[in-house]
């Protein structure tokens, strides 16, 4: 299919000049007249009952304008899974119990941040300490203390998938293996610490500027926790300094800012510190994974039994979704005649885990792909050949999930084999050096309506004006991944209006059409893109009559909208400028503006996602047998993201994903002490890759066209964060013989495996 020229171009980001000159306004840059500053008091204990709170001394401190504790608030529980009200387990401020070190207990509003902080220190809280649990194994053990009374056994959610005859397949298999894997906690480490500014107006209306990836979710949950109509809350556009899943819920400081702004009648700002983020912020789920897999003699996969305990920390957050997706990605990529998944989301007394770039898939894939590499060795097959024998293809059906509408997985495997020099390098092995492979698939947005929205999942409003310019209003949220540019490319492609003539209004929940579920699950390009195309189509229908009348066209003609012109496709001389066409259409509408809305909600697309990306990655590493250090020499990636809308943005996603995947595998790890306190709360101690740590990379796009996506596009943001860990782990094994089943790969583990240390 031939796409308009602007599709696939490397258009520089339209928001980049403002960001490169310091003009872009992030939340903490906002300072309103009379603004107060908020600080949170957090629990120093991992699990305790609150016996008494005394805020008198804090209130008496000069400069303090208000102090609130849980008892002062409406005490409405919240959580993103509105569809299952029982899963909504959080309160903005703790009432009876605290469940992790950092659980929010009180909030102060003061004239300046220092006074607010001093006031927090003056709040007296008497706790009765309770036994705390820090591992999933302890949490599900009989007689374990309960973290939430409503969740017996500390299991908050169970997800099961089962199809095919598992027992029979295991019985008839030629080769069966069982493995257990463990993965650890890492953090999004977006560069912009969370912040928000709330302003009250007209009594009980609130405007909130906040560093979020989900303005609509924040609007709805803030309204419900404040006891206000949704329409009283407006979440406003700001530049957002990264998210990666870490900013996709209502957060206590957002509630406290709004609540305190309403109580004091003054605007109020919260800004978190980096140590707040590292010590108390959301993180990727640690997991304990058991996987049993069966193959035929020829290497055909027959069955898999996949059992996962997700360490959710103290609250559900986005854990339920991670529990679902972990099951989905336990058997993606390959065709399994029989599959059984048991996923349990387990509470522990640690900071809550939540969504993080891949949402359960990086953990599942580390286990699944590592096991494929183990099996290939035992079966005497090349790991890529084993994958090719089992790889999914377009049209394959995954029971209970979806039918795959486009799939370039086999092509990805073949291409990555080529560009990495796989066959030759494996034959001609150098000591201390190895190649490893990991593969991925990921969703292009979710189908399952866990937020229980009554609105469409995405919406767009297009207006065109007589000067030939357009306005696109859309709640979609640019957190750095680029939709502010990509959605304008899509509108430009559909309506023929130059990209620089499109003004964008985004993120604002009061000024953009309802609704948008936000930036997560790689949903924005596909879902918002489709909404933009539908709106543009309606505008074209409004403009078409002008040309048909002007040129007395036969109704069989087709019109083209390109290069700021409208013309007859079969006879391009019959043309007028878009500006003139809009002018004439407006004349005929007697004052009614040219405005149209488009919507997208996936329907009849199974339970998981309307489209899936695929890909394969090869890591080439060197392991120093004396120091145990792993150096990634080069990363090779072949991926199928459908038609890339903005090539440079897709490359940027890939390169960023490698940075995050490298950190996950080799460097990053949040370490807690025996009391549940995070020990590495600075970027000095929480190491993530710098420019010097990044290996060179080579990548190739596999050509596919996703029929459900705008101009053939699908997911390109998160999936690439998945294959890096299993690829590096495999390469490390090939280089030195250490087989990692428990991330991260550290020099100590390598040296221990090599018998160099005990």
């Amino acid at each position, binding site marked *: 299919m031939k796409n308009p020229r602007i599709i696939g171009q490397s258009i520089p980001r339209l928001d980049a000049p403002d960001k490169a000159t*310091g003009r872009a306004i*992030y939340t903490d840059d906002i300072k309103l007249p009379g603004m107060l500053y908020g600080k949170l008091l957090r629990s120093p204990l991992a699990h305790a009952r609150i016996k008494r709170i005394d805020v008198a001394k804090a209130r008496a401190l000069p400069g303090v304008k208000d102090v609130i504790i849980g008892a002062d608030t409406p005490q409405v529980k919240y959580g993103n899974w509105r569809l299952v009200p029982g899963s909504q387990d959080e309160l903005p401020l703790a009432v009876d119990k605290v469940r992790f070190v950092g659980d929010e207990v009180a909030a102060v509003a003061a004239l300046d941040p220092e006074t607010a902080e001093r006031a927090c220190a003056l709040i007296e809280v008497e706790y009765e300490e309770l036994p705390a649990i820090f591992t999933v194994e302890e949490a599900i053990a009989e007689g374990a203390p309960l973290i939430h009374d409503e969740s017996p056994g500390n299991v908050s959610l169970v997800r099961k998938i089962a199809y095919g005859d598992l027992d029979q397949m295991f019985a008839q298999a030629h080769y069966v293996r069982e493995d257990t894997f463990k993965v650890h906690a890492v953090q999004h480490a977006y*560069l912009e610490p969370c912040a928000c500014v709330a302003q009250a107006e007209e009594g009980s209306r609130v405007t909130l500027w906040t560093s979020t990836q989900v303005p609509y979710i924040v609007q709805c949950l803030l309204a419900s926790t404040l006891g206000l109509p949704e329409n009283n809350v407006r979440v406003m556009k700001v530049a957002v300094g*990264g998210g990666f899943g870490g900013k996709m819920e209502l957060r206590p400081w957002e509630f406290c800012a709004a609540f305190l702004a309403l109580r004091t009648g003054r605007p109020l700002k919260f800004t978190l510190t980096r140590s707040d983020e590292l010590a108390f912020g959301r993180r990727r789920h640690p997991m304990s994974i058991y996987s049993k897999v069966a193959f035929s003699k020829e290497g055909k996969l027959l069955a898999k039994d996949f059992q996962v305990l997700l360490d959710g920390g103290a609250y559900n957050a986005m854990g339920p979704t991670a529990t679902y997706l972990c099951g989905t990605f336990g058997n993606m990529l390959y065709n399994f005649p029989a599959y059984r998944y048991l996923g349990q989301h387990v509470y522990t007394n640690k900071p809550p885990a939540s969504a993080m770039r891949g949402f359960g898939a990086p953990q599942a894939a580390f286990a699944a792909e590592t096991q494929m590499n183990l099996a290939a060795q035992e079966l005497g097959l090349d790991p890529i050949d084993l994958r090719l024998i089992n790889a999914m293809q377009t049209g394959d059906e995954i029971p209970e999930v979806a039918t795959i509408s486009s799939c370039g997985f086999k092509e990805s495997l073949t291409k990555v084999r080529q560009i990495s020099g796989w066959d030759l390098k494996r034959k001609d092995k150098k000591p201390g050096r190895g190649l490893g492979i990991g593969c991925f698939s990921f969703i292009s947005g979710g189908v399952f309506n866990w937020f229980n929205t009554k609105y469409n999942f995405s919406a767009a409003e297009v207006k065109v004006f007589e000067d030939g310019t357009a306005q696109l209003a859309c709640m979609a949220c640019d957190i750095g*991944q680029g939709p502010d540019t990509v959605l304008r490319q899509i509108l430009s492609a559909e309506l023929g209006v130059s990209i620089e003539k499109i003004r964008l209004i985004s993120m604002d929940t009061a000024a953009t059409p309802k609704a948008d579920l936000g930036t997560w699950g790689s949903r924005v390009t596909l879902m918002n893109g489709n909404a933009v195309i539908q709106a543009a189509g309606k505008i074209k229908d409004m403009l078409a009559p002008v040309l048909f009348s002007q040129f007395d066209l036969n109704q069989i003609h087709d019109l083209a909208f390109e290069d700021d012109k409208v013309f007859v496709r079969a006879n391009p001389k019959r043309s007028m400028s878009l500006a003139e066409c809009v002018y004439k259409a407006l004349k005929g509408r007697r004052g009614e503006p040219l405005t149209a809305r488009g919507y997208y909600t996936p329907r009849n697309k199974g339970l998981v996602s309307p489209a899936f990306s695929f890909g394969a990655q090869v890591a080439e590493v060197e392991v120093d047998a004396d120091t145990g250090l792993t150096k990634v020499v080069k990363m090779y990636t072949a991926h199928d993201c459908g038609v890339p809308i903005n090539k*440079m943005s897709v490359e940027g996603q890939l390169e960023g*994903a490698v940075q995050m995947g490298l950190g996950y595998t080799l460097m990053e790890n949040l370490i807690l002490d025996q009391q549940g306190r995070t020990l590495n709360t600075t970027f000095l101690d929480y190491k993530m890759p710098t*420019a*010097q740590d990044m290996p060179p990379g080579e990548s190739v796009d596999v050509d596919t066209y996703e029929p459900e996506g705008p101009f053939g596009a699908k997911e390109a943001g998160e999936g690439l964060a998945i294959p890096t860990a299993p690829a590096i782990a495999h390469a490390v094994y090939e280089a030195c013989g250490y087989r990692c089943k428990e991330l991260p790969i550290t020099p100590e583990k390598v040296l221990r495996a090599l018998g160099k240390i005990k």
Partner: protein
Amino acid sequence: MAKQTIELRVNGDRYEVAVDPWRTLAEVLREELRLTGTKIGCNQGDCGACTVLLDGRSVSSCLTLAVEAHQREITTIEGLAPSPDHLHPLQQAFVQHGAVQCGFCTPGMILAAKHLLENNPQPTEQEIRRGLGGNLCRCTGYNKIVEAVQAAAQELAAGKEG
């Protein structure tokens, strides 16, 4: 402790401000002068988002006391572009090469690169990576940033010759 009156020379402008002696340069730039292009990513000197040039040298403004900058020349990201319509070659290269995603590290990254190029106008890729080693980015994977710095170095060299 009493406030001290200092003179800050920022991007060619002179400001007289009374500051607590313990205030950092980053805070004073952002809160007093309202030059919010300087970002605070960690406030601990680890991430480089707050990088500014102090007498031409790149420093973490979150680790620099405002009083230390008294009567010294400060360049922030707001002062880099020669005019509102013209970007500095580094800014232009960052935009053109896709080196900006969320943008939060960008001001510090660009100023660190400026310091690097002033001391080493034709750096190798490894020298660029080392020069930016104190600046964290979580979006781009750094490769496009390195490409942008290489392109800007060429542009600046060509400008000098021409």
